[in-house]
């Protein structure tokens, strides 16, 4: 079954996450035999990339947990396929330099900086209805009251389904509840400081909710601070 799913040799059953993890005993880790970080990331995100999906992905995590890097990765994939990407940036935290370093073509990315949570939700809906294949909503610091209404998410979910696009929600907590197709919890494992240089972060991504597959799978991802040679 694993071979059929393309996972042969990649899954080790029963290896727990570190003991300090709140999800510790429930998840297994996927370790690529090649050790290539891109393989692990793409394995995690591949089913949710591309058009004709209609997915609502939730990326939640704390400080330096790698959730923004995962969103960059999705944006880079969409731009590489020639799709348009909308980035609704409520906290005004998007860094174009970092985005370009991550391989995202800036010329097809629309950056929207709303100042209110309601405007952010409305902007995302407008982008979906226009035909943007991927819409990233960075909702850190959003007014919780506006996000706690079920109508908000049912409306956004309907827009996502009708547009057959992918929407990514970035936040510190889970906000859209059962409307999420995929919920990924990210957590910093350790930061890599080596001889006075900051090399990157080791993060783990755990699938907490999955409408189309199993939950509880954990992935270790190395986020490098340096660009690949060449």
């Amino acid at each position: 079954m694993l071979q059929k799913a393309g996972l042969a040799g990649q899954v080790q059953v029963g290896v727990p996450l570190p003991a300090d993890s709140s999800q510790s005993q429930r998840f297994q880790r996927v370790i690529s035999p090649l050790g290539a970080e891109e393989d692990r990331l793409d394995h995690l995100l591949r089913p949710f990339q591309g058009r004709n999906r209609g997915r609502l992905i939730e990326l939640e995590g704390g400080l330096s947990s790698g959730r923004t890097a995962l969103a960059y990765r999705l944006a880079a994939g969409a731009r590489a396929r020639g799709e348009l990407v909308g980035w609704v940036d409520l906290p005004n935290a998007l860094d174009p330099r970092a985005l370009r370093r991550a391989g995202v073509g800036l010329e097809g990315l629309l950056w929207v900086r709303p100042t209110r949570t309601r405007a952010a939700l409305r902007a995302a809906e407008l982008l979906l209805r226009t035909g943007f294949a991927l819409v990233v909503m960075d909702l850190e610091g959003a007014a919780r009251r506006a996000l706690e209404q079920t109508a908000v998410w049912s409306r956004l979910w309907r827009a996502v389904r009708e547009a057959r696009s992918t929407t990514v929600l970035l936040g510190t907590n889970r906000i859209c509840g059962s409307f999420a197709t995929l919920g990924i919890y990210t957590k910093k494992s350790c930061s890599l400081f080596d001889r006075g240089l900051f090399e990157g972060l080791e993060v783990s991504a755990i699938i907490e909710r999955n409408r189309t597959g199993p939950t509880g799978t954990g992935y270790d991802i190395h986020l490098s601070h340096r660009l690949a040679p060449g």
Partner: protein
Amino acid sequence: MARVACLFILDLPLAAACRAEPELRGKPLGILESPRYGRDETIIAGWMRGLTVVQARAVKPDLIVRPLSMEGIQSAQEALLDVASSVSPRVEDAAPGLTYIDLDGTQALFPTERGLLTALETRARDVGLEPIQVGIGPTRTTAALAARDRGGGTIVQRKELQRFLHALPLDLLDPEEETLDRLTLWSVRTLGQLARIPIHALGTRLGKEGVRLARRARGEDLSPFRPTPPRLRFEEGTECGYPVGNLEALAFQMRGVLDRLTRRLRVRGLAARELLVELTLQSGGHFECKVELGAPTLEVPVLVSLVRLSLEKSSPDEPVERIRVIATPGSVETAQFDLFLPPLPTPAELAMTVARLEALCGPGQVGAPGCSDTHRLDEAHMQAFSIPPAGTSSVRDAPLQRPTLALRALRPPRAVRVWGQEGLPERVQLSEHPLQILSRAGPWRLFGEWWGERRFARDYFDVELSDSGVYRLYRNLEDESWFVDGIYD
């Protein structure tokens, strides 16, 4: 064979008033000779012309009167020119309410003259000019006569020119009153009768005026066609009628102005790229406000929202008496998409979305991210967004590189208090309590733009704090102040 079309508005002040207030169309309306309302003002256009308001109301109590608006008349005349320019670049602005179009070369767009005439009538209706009279003929004189005779809509071919002119009344040529009286005394009442009199005989008896009339009665033009230089300046204005000191009421008045403006732009196949709003204040002062749009658009609610947002930021201190909006036109782009790429929205759809987003988030908050050519790490700017041409994406077909760290920018950089030794930070106070630095990398010195006012010299550190975040920290070497400008994520 030359062909000319004529657009004629019988009563331009009346048409201008109906254009500004479409609900007045079909109602008894009189236009006063002065821009101020007064009971003793004389009506110069529309119903009951020549009477004062009091006299006219005695005859027709439900008469509506409006003061003369030079602004509205000018806008109506420009709208008339826009209608004419929408079919041909060779247009002559002959007089208020009278425009000629050289039809040479329009056959590719309009195979039949009847189709052209209908298109002109429709476009005039679209810009709010109603009723308009259109005529087509071999000369400007004939075209004008065709437009003025029996409400217009007449097409005169050269072979039927004599027959057409023969029965037309003499007053269509607008002769001087004295000349008209003399001609009537001679029993000359139609153009055909006038054309039968030899020109030199008329010249002897009526002078230059007689010769002019005789030539025009034969369908000849008195001067060559003088094309008006094409103008791409779109202005619309309105007089509020009373001092408006409320933003809500101002937005209501603005909606009408922008609606008329967008109708004119639409007829020319253009869209608004930038708006300049000029307000005349009660004291006679002026207030200006510029609204830059992310993408050209024709959506009136979007434009109203943007103007309103802009006025909310800086509004005039006094009530407003007159509004004028000048639009810089831009064309909605077209794009050829790649057959092998996913379907993308059209540039027009995208422009509309960008404009709506701007109305939602405010001007300057929507666009493509851009990196400035500088060593400043926290520099970022917004640029105009457009669909990248097919095949130009720098990342297309390139394999995705290994995952890199993202940075969440803090804008503006947050000033922090730092404790340390020998210039190396050890504790950082981000909020209430100081946080211990667990790991540190740096410093890396960055300095630049020393030739200008934006010079900078900073020592950058990457630090991991005890709240588990990894931050980018820098020290300003000029004043020894510390800032956090990003969180690695």
